[in-house]
């Protein structure tokens, strides 16, 4: 099984530690992982803003870079969802990467199925269930639906020794980032971020964790604005601790 690691643009530039953690965890679990050079962006920001045509060359490039791997794994649910849902439309010829793209949480949970314990992390964490993860990738049961409850993020986190895992009220309400939404609807975006971080803080957790750094980044800005003292770590960063 050969895995191609996709590190999205904003993770590459602003949160490389998430890339490092992803690499570390996959290698620790014995995965044959490669980081193909020349990758940049999946095209989501332009497409969600209405410029899908701008994403096409990026999709074509992505397809070329990753098509020969068995899985394309990325520490970003929004990117994984974008590739899975939209690439077949954007890459006109047969698109192989769409069905191979997985966010790292679902890849670990569904394919690798690691057994614990996976290092120590004696802290209380509040899960931020990013929307693309919940409603496009099926990382957890959406609170709207009457289906058996599950949460893959929680399952993985519980492999850490000493960890305490909680979820906030309104457990999968959107944080309000939404990419270009945060600029176009700044006031609503800020209110949503403020409401969400308050709910996370109300759980008493020391750290907010989730499968998407863009949500965490938005919540971190909200926390700073409100003077709320709480930490932020991507799920894969927590998994990598103590390995």
């Amino acid at each position, binding site marked *: 099984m050969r895995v191609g690691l996709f590190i999205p643009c904003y993770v590459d530039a602003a949160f490389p530690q998430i890339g490092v953690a992803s*690499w570390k965890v996959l290698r620790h679990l014995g995965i044959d992982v490669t980081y193909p050079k020349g990758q940049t962006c999946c095209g989501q920001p332009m497409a969600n803003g*209405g410029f899908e045509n*701008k994403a096409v060359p990026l999709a074509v490039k992505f397809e070329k870079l990753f098509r020969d791997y068995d899985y394309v794994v990325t520490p970003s649910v929004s990117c994984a969802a974008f590739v899975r849902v939209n690439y077949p439309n954007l890459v006109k010829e047969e698109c192989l990467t769409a069905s191979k793209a997985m966010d790292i949480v679902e890849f670990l949970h569904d394919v690798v199925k690691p057994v614990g314990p996976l290092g120590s992390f004696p802290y209380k964490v509040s899960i931020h269930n990013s929307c693309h993860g919940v409603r496009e990738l099926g990382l957890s049961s959406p609170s709207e639906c009457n289906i058996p409850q599950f949460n893959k993020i929680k399952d993985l986190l519980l492999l850490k020794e000493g960890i305490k895992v909680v979820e906030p009220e309104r457990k999968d309400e959107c944080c*309000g980032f939404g990419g270009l939404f945060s600029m176009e609807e700044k006031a*609503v975006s800020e209110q949503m971020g403020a409401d969400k971080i308050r709910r996370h803080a109300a759980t008493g957790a020391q750290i907010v964790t989730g499968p998407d750094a863009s949500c965490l980044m938005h919540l971190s800005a909200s926390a700073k604005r409100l003077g709320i003292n709480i930490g932020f770590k991507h799920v894969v960063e927590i998994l990598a601790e103590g390995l």
Partner: protein
Amino acid sequence: MSTAHSKKASAFLKNKDYTAWHDGTFWSVREKRDRMAAGLPEWEQLRDKASAIKRHTLSHLADYLEEFASNAEKNGVIVHWAADAGEFNAIVLEILRAHGVRKMVKSKSMLTEECGMNPFLEAHGIEVVETDLGERIIQLKGQKPSHIVMPAIHLSHDDVGRLFEEKGISDDIGNHDPTYLTWRARLSLRGEFLSAEAGMTGANFGIASTGDIVVCTNEGNADMSTSCPKLHIAAIGLEKIIPNYDSLAVFQRMLCRAGTGQPTTTYTSHFRGPRPGGEMHIVLVDNGRSSWLSDEDHRETLKCIRCGSCMNTCPVYRRSGGFSYSYFIPGPIGINLGMLRSPKDHSGNLSACTLCLSCQSVCPVKVNLGDQIYRWRQQLRDFGTYNMGKKMLSDTLSLGYGNKGLYDTATALFPAANIIPESVIPFRLRFPKKPFHSLIKELEDE
């Protein structure tokens, strides 16, 4: 970067207490819906069936319309067909004139709002009295509805109390207790029902196999509107037709559970024909629906049963209110219906969405509301109504991401952006010295 919606939303959000109340009120309706859904093990199965029934019906809409009209006519109902809003209004006016009607009572109908019927009739000297309490309140206040199920939700009980005092509906000045105000409205409307010469209803469903129309209310105002005056006019959009009673059971069970978190509306009334000594008319209204039917990307919108659950769950609607949207129907379904009505007038609503997809997860008929908003955003390019700022940003991103050399240079320079204040870039981006694609070399060597 701002839009018609974002400007109004920004003003709405200035009142923090009101925003918190508005958000909390609609979230609690969403929670009630959740409890209803959890109480029926077959909930998700019902959603699948409802979506499939609607898709089937829409794929044979002409046949079902003919069957419906034919059965209604056999029952002694006079059936009219209105190609557009103008024709609908003209048909209604003609019926009312033929019967010498000076006052008509009506129960709730979003369709009549869509056609601008009330102002049209009033301009022709016919008094129209809304009898749904929420609709009556905003009629008296001269406002538009802020929600399709709870149209007066934006008003406090003091607002309503003062309005009723001003209009002479209540006489205990200063008594703004909702129970008292509701009783005074009841007395006032009782007089209207008894003196009106015609009653108009909308229709939640039209049953093809029997020719019935079905009207669901909690107040009983559709039944009062049709029990006193002898002339009944029912307005129904083409897409409200469903095949038979077996189908109806699926929708009736979900409509109120989804919309208000109750197991049923108080009244689920079947109107099959005219009252003794009376007349019943049904007006089937197109007004764009037949052309939406041909739109592959957006015909799913026709499945909508107008329950309102999408706006209750929408985190943006809850924090911006109905009046932030330019179309008279707000929230996810309103964004979509507005675009179908007029992209030019309503594309300013497209920003009001983070694509969280909660709306399509609650929708009882599985309209893909968020997916369609995404599609409309792509189409903005063709309409020429896209946001210039957004386009420039997207162009810049594409340029950077498309060119590896440029990208590497840009990311190397990003740390310089650390000094840019947050008021300029609204999210907290701190750029580390080395991006991942530089760090990887060390990792591979390990």
